[in-house]
């Protein structure tokens, strides 16, 4: 673990990604402490205030301070997206690896069921699940996790199938190791690198999917300062107050880039071929 971290920070992407995400993490932890205003406090005269001395990042249609909303909003945005991805990845990776290892009929049965779920596009699943659960952050989180799981299972399986052909699994089987041990000690770690790359991309996707669900009215609830909600709220004023889209849009973009960079760094650091 320490070794991986050390190698991760040695790659330029990994170092940059870690730095970006460290800032994001700090904002999540301490944002509310450094925010200049209450993020929900309206100010009639300050509506659409241009970024400046009073409002560093401007103010929105209700005169709420954009900077404060951004700082508070990190908590409403990043942890849920991360959690949703983690849940979806974990579920998918386990199922995918099991399917690849089990092979034969079990593999078929599992993969056909997954195919069936996957045949319904992710956003549609998320939309239907969120519509059924009722609008809210929790529903959106679960919806994204469910939408991600089958795709992750499929990717994990295709990687694991290739891994399965490799010598060390054959060696483990020849050594007479039990199935579970092979899955967890040999296959999962080796299948991990591409899965990690994919799931870091998906954290960014998750942030955007959250935003999209908010855009379509089934995500975070106003007056939450969830970044996606801020973008979709601000979109109507794009021509008069472009910062209302640019500021939270950039925040989403930077966070997503951070996760992408970290993923690439991890990929290089975790590459099992590099070890040998």
């Amino acid at each position, binding site marked *: 673990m320490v070794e991986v971290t050390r190698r991760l920070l040695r790659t330029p992407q990994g170092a940059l990604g870690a730095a970006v995400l460290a800032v994001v993490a700090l904002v999540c932890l301490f944002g509310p402490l450094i925010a200049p205003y209450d993020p929900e406090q309206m100010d009639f005269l300050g509506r659409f205030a241009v970024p400046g001395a009073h409002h560093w990042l401007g103010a929105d249609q209700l005169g709420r301070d954009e900077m404060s909303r951004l700082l508070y909003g990190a908590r409403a945005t990043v942890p849920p997206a991360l959690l949703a991805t983690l849940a979806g990845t974990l579920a998918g990776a386990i199922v995918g690896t099991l399917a690849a290892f089990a092979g034969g009929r079990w593999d078929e049965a599992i993969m056909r069921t997954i195919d069936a*779920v996957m045949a319904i596009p992710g956003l549609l699943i998320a939309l239907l699940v969120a519509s*059924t659960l009722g609008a809210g952050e929790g529903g959106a989180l679960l919806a994204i996790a469910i939408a991600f799981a089958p795709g992750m299972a499929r990717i994990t399986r295709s990687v694991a199938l290739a891994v399965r052909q490799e010598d060390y699994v054959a060696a483990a089987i020849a050594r007479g190791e039990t199935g579970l041990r092979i899955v967890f000690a040999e296959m999962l770690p080796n299948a991990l690198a591409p899965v990690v790359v994919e799931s870091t991309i998906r954290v960014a996707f998750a942030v955007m999917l959250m935003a999209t669900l908010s855009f379509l009215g089934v995500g975070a609830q106003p007056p939450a300062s969830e970044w996606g909600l801020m973008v979709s709220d601000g979109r109507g004023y794009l021509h008069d107050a472009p910062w209302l889209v640019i500021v939270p849009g950039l925040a989403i973009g930077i966070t997503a880039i951070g996760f992408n960079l970290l993923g690439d760094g991890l990929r290089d650091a975790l590459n099992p071929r590099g070890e040998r």
Partner: protein
Amino acid sequence: MSPAWLLRRLLLMAYTLLVVSILVFAITQILPADAAVTMLGQDATPAALAALRAKLGLADPVWLQFWHWFSAVLRGDFGISMRTGLPVGPTMLTALSRSLLLAVCSLSLMLVIAIPLGVLAALRQGRALDLAVGLISYLGISLPEFVTATLVLVVLADRLQWLPATGYVPPSEHLLDGIRHLVAPVLTVSLVLIAHVSRMMRSETIDVLASDYVLAADLKGLAPPTVLLRHVMRNALLPVISVVALDVGYLLGGIIVVEEIFAIPGIGRALLVAIQNRDLPAIQAGALIMAATYAVVNLLADIAYAVLDPRLRYG
């Protein structure tokens, strides 16, 4: 890839669609809405609602309702929209054809740009080109569609006035105008795809380049272009096919936002409208047709996978 294998896959696809039908039907059963209220609207009297519920068979056991619906679907009858009173099957198929047009254009543009871009970036790893490609793909992948769509709109339609801002004209009706209306949405959709796939292509190419058999080929003295074509492309394409197949799902469902902004009456928007209006037959038909399309594309991807990687044998 034997005929028997293909037949098996087709049977499995039918099974997939059966499972999807059950799933979709189940979801529409638990969606919080009252079909009778949806159909009669705000001014319905309780008596009229009760009469309609009886007529629709809403009091029947769920499995019987499913059977009525499913057997009609097998005959090609998806039912009547609760909102418009029009048959939903033909409506959804028309919508699908427009989404497919958008999808095919976006995928083609993506393939033409993303694969060479990814390979080039891998070959020039760490150099200026690689960094530029990386930056572009990071941006493309990290901006939500309604931001990119809005940027495309502001720049190409508002500022430069090169393209119409919104709307859809069938190319069959008016070729030139139809294409003009497609450019902005295709650009928006393919931006995300290009970013996604060129990243994948780059990382896979690097992987394969570093692998033993490329090194071996190098040792054998094969010319670099041959190595690139025979080994790198072929092996790197495998996961890319997987990702492209995944992206078709994104394309079919996820372009909802793009279809909404550019007013393309595709299946994504039709489904969104159906979900918002709790138009249950339209949701069922739309989701099932979408799933069928996806299943076909997936089958094609699996076939391609099997052709490209003979190591994989299906039990």
